[in-house]
């Protein structure tokens, strides 16, 4: 074997060994957490962009309740609760104060069964799956507060959810199951975990930060996940916000989405006895597009809320109230709302509920 063969072979073994360790690390959430950087604390958009100029001087305040829902706390199926909150990361983010769903529970003085969409995707994609079986009309009103951020609405409600789908999905889920251990160690969410490992580990993260910062300073080049930014104020915007903002939301689409949401409301009432309370949250870019784009907002969310109200869906409108605020309602380097916005959302939800159910 020649000298160059020996060198290359040794290099392959070293890289192969590292790759094997990396592969094993991705199979265990605690290990993955251990080898990745803690820059989440500076905002998820900063973590995506890794551009030094946008790094806040101190981490965002961290609370005790982030990402915890009732299922995580060992409670049984959602339909054991009379009030359910089904929400995405906006409901469950915690920036040092009480998250949205807990504040709502406190104000309503009713136990709310909370379901975090990101951890229980099946329920989010099809809320009917939360219920064991169809029930007759209940004696008193039950609520399903459905929180969803604006950018997710067009694709999430693109098709009507039918109760047949409920039966089909349940059957499919029970038809073939791998051992949970095999599933976790071999096939569970591997792509996202590999990406987390490759981009955010202690070795590559500083190199990526250096590269991205240089690309930004030299060419004003932004990473794909955070294509839009403003330097004054130092804001980063999420790619999906941009896609939603620039998409065409014509009247036909708005009506179609409103029809699908109204159908969900009707089915929830008819089959399960729950009334839908939709809480659509404006995107960060919807509120602050003037800092990053020339294009005007197409009023997608107000038009959708109007169409929903016309169809009798209880909808919490946040955008008008948000627009009146002089303080920023989103974290500059995070895609989520801050405590001020959460408080406004809680108050607006209560106000809408009171208007819908006086007394």
């Amino acid at each position, binding site marked *: 074997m020649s000298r160059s063969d020996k060198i*290359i072979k040794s290099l392959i*073994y070293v890289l*192969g060994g590292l790759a*094997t360790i990396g592969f094993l690390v991705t199979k265990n959430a605690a290990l993955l957490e251990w080898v990745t950087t803690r820059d989440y604390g500076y905002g998820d958009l900063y973590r995506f962009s890794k551009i030094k100029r946008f790094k806040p001087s101190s981490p965002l305040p961290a609370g005790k309740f982030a990402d915890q829902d009732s299922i995580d706390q060992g409670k049984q199926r959602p339909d054991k609760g009379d009030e359910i909150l089904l929400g995405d990361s906006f409901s469950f983010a915690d920036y040092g104060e009480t998250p949205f769903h807990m504040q709502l529970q406190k104000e309503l003085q009713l136990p709310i069964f909370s379901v975090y969409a990101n951890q229980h995707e099946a329920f989010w994609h099809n809320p009917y799956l939360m219920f064991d079986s169809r029930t007759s009309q209940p004696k008193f009103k039950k609520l399903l507060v459905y929180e969803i951020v604006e950018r997710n609405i067009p694709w999430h409600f693109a098709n009507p959810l039918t109760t047949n789908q409920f039966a089909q999905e349940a059957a499919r889920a029970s038809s073939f199951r*791998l051992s949970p251990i095999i599933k976790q160690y*071999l096939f569970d969410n591997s792509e996202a975990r590999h990406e987390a490992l490759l981009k955010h580990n202690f070795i590559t993260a500083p190199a990526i930060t250096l590269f991205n910062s240089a690309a930004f300073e030299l060419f004003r080049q932004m990473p794909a996940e955070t294509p839009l930014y403003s330097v004054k104020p130092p804001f980063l915007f999420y790619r999906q916000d941009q896609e939603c903002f620039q998409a065409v939301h014509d009247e036909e689409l708005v009506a179609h989405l409103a029809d699908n949401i109204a159908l969900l409301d009707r089915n929830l009432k008819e089959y399960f006895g729950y009334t839908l309370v939709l809480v659509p949250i404006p995107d960060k870019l919807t509120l602050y597009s003037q800092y990053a784009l020339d294009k005007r907002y197409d009023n997608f969310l107000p038009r959708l809320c109007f169409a929903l109200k016309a169809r009798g869906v209880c909808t919490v409108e946040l955008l008008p109230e948000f627009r009146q605020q002089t303080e920023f309602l989103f974290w500059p380097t995070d895609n989520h709302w801050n405590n001020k916005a959460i408080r406004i959302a809680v108050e607006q939800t209560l106000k809408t509920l009171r208007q819908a159910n006086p007394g």
Partner: protein
Amino acid sequence: MTTAWFYAVKHRFRWPLLLLFSCYFYMVFVPKYILILFALILIDYIAGLVIEPAQGLRRKIFLVISLVANIGMLSFFKYFNFAEMEAGRLFAWLGIGFQPSLLNVLLPIGLSFHTFQSISYTIEVYRGNYRAERHIGIYALYVLFYPQMVAGPIERPQNLLPQFHTPVIFHSMNVISGVELMLWGLFKKAVIADNLALIVDPAFQNPKAHTGWPIILATYAFAFQIYCDFSGYTDIARGAARTLGYHLMLNFDRPYHARSMAEFWRRWHISLSTWFRDYVYFPLGGNRHGKGKHYRNLIIVFLISGLWHGASWSFVAWGALHAIYMIFGQETHGLREDLWNAVGLAANIPVRIVTATVITFHLVWISWVFFRAGSLHRVKEVFSSMLTLTQGGALFPSQLDNFHRVGLALSMLLLAAAHLIQRRCGFRDLASRLPGFFHLGLFCGGIIWTLLWGQFESRDFIYFQF
């Protein structure tokens, strides 16, 4: 990781190791679908063993059983819903009540490639060109070999199976050239194809809003997107196999340099074109039984090729259009030669070469509309948008910023230059002549270039859907 483990173990442990990793890669998609492949592997393995000693009708029957199993499996997953929908339409047109019962299943990834590779094995054994594989593990690896598992090249048993039996001796040049080929493939995919996708996707999703130049530009962009996407995948597959010391067949040979449609098909997706030639066109009689049968055979081959790409009438129309091109090319060959000679242009004169290349490219360009549109209705919309004089929509989408536009233009120039170099002397020849440090510099430059201008969002390779 696979390469390190591969070289760390002895030859007799390499096939189980590669098979294990290949199964794992396949199962990351939908684990249970591996059972379909195991069933096909078992059927074709046994078919090979029984075909080899059998004679006459028995030999034929065993082959037919294997073909029915392979094509049946492919048809069930790929064409069942299409057939049901079309039957529903037909019955509705006839006024007969028929409710299509559609399957709610995903197409197993790479099924079209596996079945064709398996079929080539049984046919080669049937023809006596290759001895049946005795080792079921090696045969399973032939079907599941991870670099080419999802989108080819569709290998032949003569090329791949003997390589698995032969002990691989480590050679650094295999690893270096393999890694370089993978980087070149990644460059084509992430920098060129995925940036072009930003132009193509919005225009083809809504052609009515992208009339005039935007849709024309998007169609040109798609011609290069699909080439860079698919040939990029092939380069990555061939590079990954080469690092292990295995050599997969060439799948693309600068197809847009072709001067005729026949030449285009000798340069584009070579493993599929030769598959159709060897296992469909020649058995039908090729061009040996007169013009009529020759053209019939061409039509059959291209219609099947269209259907192989997708269960949709637009793919069938794409195949039919290529058949028309081929027949038209044959019919007008003499006339065109006369015309060239009349204007005094011999075969090797640059003007004639460039003209023929440009015409061939544009014929292919038109056909890509059928390939990309997804339905005949959308094809109509695209062509009518092309013919609309007023420009609708932006030429470049806002997601493709100036920085990426410049990067894309430079990258396409680099690709063109690479093709010219390849035409003269071949990449590997040139690379071997370069000094080591220059080589390393080019490699590092390639990585930085790809990182700087590549798109790294999750965007599947186009041919994964087939």
